[in-house]
């Protein structure tokens, strides 16, 4: 399942240069051990009035951040080399504003912002073209068990296409789940673009669940860029108006489409439409808090052991909440992740008292809930990953129950079992162990960069991502013990003679989106949450087709099998069309240079 990758030569060299004989018996620092009262005080500060759920970029997050900076500075942490301060800002697209998109058809029909809503992944600008109706606008990948192509036999090049939202109502079983996966607004935009259309107009049909309603804009903070086509949704009257003059009723056409007959469901519409999209991608600023605590010899220089936790949460709710349609309400995120933040802080204070054999990088991330924004930006912009010996992450560690601590990502380095074992002798947990390093938390950003990771977790609970994740529900004795355990792990890593080797664990197929349609294997490891135009590779699987094709971490795929790739959605879409054994042409950027290679997918190993 795993392939050992080259250990970090740089770090290993430094380590050898600085090698000291590890003492046979090391004395665990029980003096000054973290107490339940200490971590409780930190959790209370992080969930205090005014923090308002600590949403990335919000004043509440800033309040929490000030506390963390003050506490970390008091422990003696220094800023990263080249940085004058512990707070490290990062920029992200916070939201996309529609500044007045418009649709004109046939001169006198004109629809403004009350009837037209730009989709968040639309390109801005004006496009003009003949109108064409394309049914549900769905194009199932060629390899799929069911054939369905709204564009079959249609000439829509440079046209503005009108498509129904959702998918044919009559579909059942496997067919239905196929449609569900390929009928999102993104997928429809990609299908329209691939067919050569200049613009896409979506309408919720009269037979649909929300007839005539505008679609939500589909903003994805982790992929905020444009999808390569102008795309809007319009309300029912605007849609009907575009349909008018075709001599057919939209309701009747939709009924026929729902009956499973796509052949008669696409046809040209009379007239010409002009689509004007004016989107502003509004950038926000989040900030991580990162400091270095000196080693026992007083040194700050890398390699570092890194430990971190995200301090942001969902703010007043929103799409990440499990109560998304409730009124705005503070989501205090006491367990998620004031708990991990408090544990890291407590551990940092303890290391300040009794330093490790190596300097410790202490990090508090923001933007985790929006897609690992802070940790991803940090790994990309602020450090050389080889300067990290390992990264230990704490996310939701405040609900210890039945003495059960989950320790994840053990597969990322062969040193973990022995280190976890030795740390847990005094730690005293009933361990639940997992090898998989692909986790929905910040450790994944480090795993992508080739750093051994470990994630600590005390389990999920009914208050997860709800306003009821409050400070009074935490197990503070347990939280203090988790902090001590993390400290023992870091101490053991610091005492190693050599840098821990990194193992690239193969991602298990069931974690890949839309796995049913993905039988072919390419061995690419996409980097999620980037603003790069194209698909940035976080790595390639050792021995996989991508590696054989010469692709490597850091390459940006811009075209796959003839399909332009602007982001992860394009890439997933393109992947769905490849077949085992059939070579695919891949165009990618490396060091600013455009290159081409051929990749031959294999069966998934």
């Amino acid at each position, binding site marked *: 399942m795993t392939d050992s990758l080259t250990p970090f030569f740089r770090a290993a060299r430094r380590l050898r240069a600085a090698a000291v004989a590890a003492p*046979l*018996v*090391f*004395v*665990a620092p029980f003096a000054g051990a973290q107490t339940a009262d200490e971590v409780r005080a930190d959790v209370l500060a992080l969930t205090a009035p005014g923090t308002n759920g600590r949403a990335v970029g919000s004043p509440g997050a800033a309040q929490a951040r000030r506390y963390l900076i003050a506490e970390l500075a008091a422990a003696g942490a220094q800023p990263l080399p080249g940085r004058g301060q512990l707070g490290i800002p990062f920029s992200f697209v916070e939201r996309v504003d529609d500044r007045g998109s418009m649709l004109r058809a046939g001169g006198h029909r004109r629809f403004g912002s009350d009837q037209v809503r730009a989709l968040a992944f639309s390109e801005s600008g004006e496009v003009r073209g003949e109108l064409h109706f394309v049914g549900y606008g769905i194009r199932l990948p060629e390899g799929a068990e069911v054939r369905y192509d709204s564009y079959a036999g249609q000439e829509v090049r440079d046209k503005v296409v009108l498509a129904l939202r959702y998918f044919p109502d009559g579909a059942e079983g496997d067919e239905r789940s196929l449609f569900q996966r390929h009928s999102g607004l993104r997928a429809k935009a990609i299908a329209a673009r691939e067919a050569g259309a200049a613009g896409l107009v979506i309408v919720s049909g009269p037979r649909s669940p929300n007839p005539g309603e505008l679609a939500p804009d589909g903003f994805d903070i982790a992929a905020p860029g444009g999808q390569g086509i102008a795309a809007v949704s319009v309300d029912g009257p605007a849609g009907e108006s575009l349909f008018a003059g075709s001599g057919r009723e939209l309701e009747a056409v939709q009924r026929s489409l729902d009956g499973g007959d796509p052949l008669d469901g696409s046809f040209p519409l009379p007239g010409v439409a002009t689509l004007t999209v004016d989107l502003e991608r509004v950038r926000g600023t989040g900030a991580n808090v990162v400091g270095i605590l000196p080693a026992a010899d007083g040194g700050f220089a890398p390699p570092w052991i890194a430990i971190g936790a995200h301090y942001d949460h969902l703010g007043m709710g929103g799409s990440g909440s499990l109560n998304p349609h409730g009124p705005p309400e503070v989501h205090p995120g006491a367990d998620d992740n004031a708990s991990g933040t408090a544990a890291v802080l407590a551990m940092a204070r303890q290391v300040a008292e009794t330093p490790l054999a190596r300097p410790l990088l202490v990090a508090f991330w923001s933007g985790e809930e929006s897609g690992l924004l802070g940790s991803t930006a940090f790994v990309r912009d602020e450090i050389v990953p080889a300067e990290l010996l390992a990264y230990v992450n704490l996310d939701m560690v405040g609900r210890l129950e039945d*003495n059960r601590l989950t320790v994840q990502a053990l597969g990322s380095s062969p040193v973990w*079992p*022995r280190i*976890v*074992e*030795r*740390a*847990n*002798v*005094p*730690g*005293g*947990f*009933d*361990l*639940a*162990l997992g090898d998989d390093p692909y986790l929905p938390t910040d450790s994944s950003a480090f795993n992508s960069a080739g750093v051994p990771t470990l994630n600590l977790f005390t389990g999920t609970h009914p208050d997860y991502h709800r306003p009821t994740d409050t400070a009074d529900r935490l197990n503070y004795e347990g939280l203090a013990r988790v902090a001590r355990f993390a400290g*023992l792990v870091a101490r053991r890593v610091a005492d190693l003679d050599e840098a821990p080797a990194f193992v690239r664990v193969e991602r298990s197929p069931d974690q890949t989106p839309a796995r049913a349609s993905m039988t072919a294997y390419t061995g690419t490891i996409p980097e999620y949450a980037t603003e790069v135009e194209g698909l940035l590779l976080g790595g390639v699987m050792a021995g996989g087709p991508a590696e054989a094709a010469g692709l490597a971490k850091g390459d940006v795929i811009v075209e796959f099998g003839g399909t332009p790739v602007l982001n992860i959605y394009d890439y997933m879409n393109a992947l769905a069309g490849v077949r085992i054994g059939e070579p695919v042409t891949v165009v990618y950027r490396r060091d600013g240079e455009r290159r081409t290679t051929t990749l031959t997918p294999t069966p998934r190993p």
Partner: protein
Amino acid sequence: MILSLRRAAGRCLIVPFLLLPGLSGPAAAQDDESRFLNRIRRLTVEGARAGEGYFSPDGREMVFQSEREPGNPFFQIYWMSLETGDIRRVSPGIGKTTCAFLSGKNGDILFASTHLDPRSLELQQEEIAFRESGRERRYAWDYDPAMDIFVEQRSDGELVRLTDARGYDAEASYSPDGEWIVFTSNRPMFEEALKGREARLAEVDPSYFAEIYRMRADGSGQERLTSVPGYDGGPFYFPDGSRIVWRRFSEDGLIADVWTMNPDGSDPQRVTDFGAMSWAPYVHPSLQYILFASNKLGFSNFEVYMVDLAGEKEPVRVTTSDGFDGLPVPTPDGNGLAWTSGRHGGPGSQIYLADWDHEAALEALRSAPLRGSR
């Protein structure tokens, strides 16, 4: 069938690691292990399996066996500080080892090992090749005749050989004062001229000849304590040194029960009559009961049980989790229990430690029915 049953029952972590999990019988709520066991924690993680953890008299150290030595698929012996989590290998790293024990007198570490067998590396390679072949078999303890008893002296780190008889010498433990060692040996198989049925048994089941022996801590004065046909093994002194507890197999090897005797072998007393494979007994420091493992609930479903010292009552079930539970060893203060368990799922057993509710144990033993009454 008989053969594999017997072989699954040596004392030394003859843990059938291919047993299917999920075989524990249903336990009524009042029979849940949380009656006796609290704050369960996992002590070992590294390597394919670990087991047989025995404490130092002050409870700060443990010796155990584990398959974790790179290139060696067999158990080696390790020492662990229960305070810091430091662990080091004690045994030489090659060959097979089993059954470590710490001296209460000077911290010397006793264990059995085959490392002097020149075929050791070859056997390691064979075992690795077998496991890589993907074939499966029940875990089999082979009573390797090259197994002898050694001691690592704490004073100088020297490894000293204590037995050199032909045959399997293993399953050794110290008396509380550290002056005596009680152990298991099948040397009679090599000492006597075997005929007929016994000669055939020597081929298929060398454990049949195993008996309990004792010797001085320096290996002198080796003396046989039992002489009943069938496998006698797994002896431990009582915490006060007054007697020895061990398990005795029936002659046909189908059933094992817990026995006690005086340190000179006199006055053997049967403690259990449980009609199952009951083995790995260890006396609680209170001298009021014996903890042991038994497959009473099914051929491959081992659980930890306890029974009063005289065996007047029926044994009481302790563990109720899925997977193997056996080889119980109480902490020297009597308030904890270490045992070997497969409760985490996965292929190999590991060592667990929990707080032990001695009062609850006494209460459960008091209310247990008289032996033979059910």
